[in-house]
């Protein structure tokens, strides 16, 4: 199954001289006018690890992702993304999956998923051929030529995730990936993403306001405060998820304990 997934791309797989830092934030600050969104944010993320960032809404979590992706420039401090510190350099390393699926309504599911390959100058035909095989693995078989308005919310999110993966970037930034879904679909998608990420050795930065989601999907959880966003605490999750269902994980005593300390930190 591993060789079928999009992962295992040059940059992520080759070790770079013992330097195992994927992303490093050093006293990062960002303000919008008088509103201070982030203040003195410092933490590091190892390569190919999964980090969840939780915190109250308006705590600058999305801003942190946009800064990481190089879509915004920080006012203070530095951000190092696999050695890249400029916004352009960061942009070249990161692919972001937004909260809203942002599928282009005039493109079919397949043509949406392949857009990153097309952006690199590959012909439509080759881009389609390269993307098509992943549809079955993503539970999207038969939906290749369907336009987004005929897809369910969960399917749209999966197309959106596939589109992010097809960018073949070392770093995936997930911004409330299931925030727009109902809780049942959300649970199913979390379970599915847990498996999908297991196949993809990449650095994943997941922003969510849902503590369960962060604990379920990441190895480390960074708890952030309300505005101005600061790092309150860093929790090492290290839950055993292999072979367990979502229900089994989220009801285990270890999970409940972690959830309690996370919720305590948020308050």
């Amino acid at each position, binding site marked *: 199954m591993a060789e079928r997934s999009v992962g295992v791309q040059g940059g992520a797989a080759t070790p770079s001289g013992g330097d195992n830092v994927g992303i490093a934030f050093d006293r990062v600050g960002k303000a919008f006018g008088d509103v201070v969104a982030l203040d003195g944010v410092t933490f590091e993320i190892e390569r190919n690890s999964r980090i969840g960032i939780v915190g109250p809404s308006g705590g600058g979590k999305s801003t942190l992702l946009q800064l990481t992706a190089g879509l915004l420039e920080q006012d203070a401090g530095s951000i190092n993304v696999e050695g890249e510190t400029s916004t352009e350099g960061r942009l070249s390393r990161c*692919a972001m999956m937004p909260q809203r699926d*942002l599928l*282009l309504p005039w493109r079919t599911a397949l043509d949406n998923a392949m857009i990153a390959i097309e*952006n690199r100058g590959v012909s439509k035909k080759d881009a389609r051929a390269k993307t098509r095989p992943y549809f079955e693995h993503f539970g999207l078989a038969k939906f290749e030529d369907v336009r987004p308005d005929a897809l*369910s919310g969960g399917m749209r999110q999966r197309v959106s995730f596939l589109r992010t993966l097809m960018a073949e970037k070392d770093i995936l930034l997930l911004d409330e990936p299931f925030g727009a879904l109902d809780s049942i679909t959300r649970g199913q998608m979390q379970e599915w993403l847990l498996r999908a990420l297991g196949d993809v050795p990449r650095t994943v930065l997941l922003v969510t306001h849902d503590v369960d989601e962060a604990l379920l999907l990441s190895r480390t959880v960074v708890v952030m405060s309300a505005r101005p966003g600061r790092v309150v605490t860093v929790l090492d999750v290290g839950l055993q998820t292999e072979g367990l269902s979502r229900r089994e994980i989220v009801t285990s005593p270890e999970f409940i304990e972690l959830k309690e300390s996370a919720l305590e930190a948020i308050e």
Partner: protein
Amino acid sequence: MSAKASEERAADPMPAEDPIVPKRTSAFGHFWRNYGLAMLIIIALLVIWELWIRIFHVPKYLLASPTGIWTSLQKDWSRYLLPNLWPTLSEVLIGFGISVVAGVGLAIVLHLFTPLRRAVYPILIGSQTIPIVVLAPVLVILLGYGLLPKVVIVALICFFPIVVNGLDGLRLVDDDFIRMMRTLDATRWSIFRKVEFPGALPSIFSGMRVAATFAAIGAIFGEWAGSSVGLGYLIQASTPNLQTARIFAAILLLTLIAMALFGLVSLLERIFCPWVSRGGVL
């Protein structure tokens, strides 16, 4: 344990789904649902109009009856109506075509070059306060009696809604789409071609629809300012002769030109923007 894990992985937690096939209604049902009531109202008005004239013996030089207009359409078709229909139709189509190309082109250029938009947009708005009615005679003096001034007037009158709607459509594309494209290695041109332009198409078509209803009016202004052919000229020439039925027949043809152009734009929108559902309203 590991066997169980791989089995779990193979199983997709998502239930299998099938593509949704949209329901289709018959062409007649579609037509009836959209235009049925409008047709009934028009027929009712025509009947009342006809009865009014017959009951009160309204002289036909004052007001033509629907049957009188019908007679005129047949009687005057080859001698008066058809020879004057073609010039007006060409003015409308050429002028409209020019305004679409120029309007969409200008909208794109202004959108891609922000400083230029800041410079040109206020001038564009300002230019719209000049009434075309007073501009028409000036253009006839400048460009002569032929086809050219009418085409220019039609293009001028259609140009504005197309540029403004096009610019709005291009500008109002959600920033989130643009951010998403940037993290997926899109160039400026790629973002324009794959996101902004298709996203603005429905707005561009809205502008074209508004413009389509103006086009025939522009042609009439142009012809009234100075012409020896066209439906506008025919209306003007028939007035002193009290050929009321012929005037109405010419007006009817003008309306049909405008409606046909409107229909053409809507058809093009259906072809080029199949993802937009307008609930069947043209």
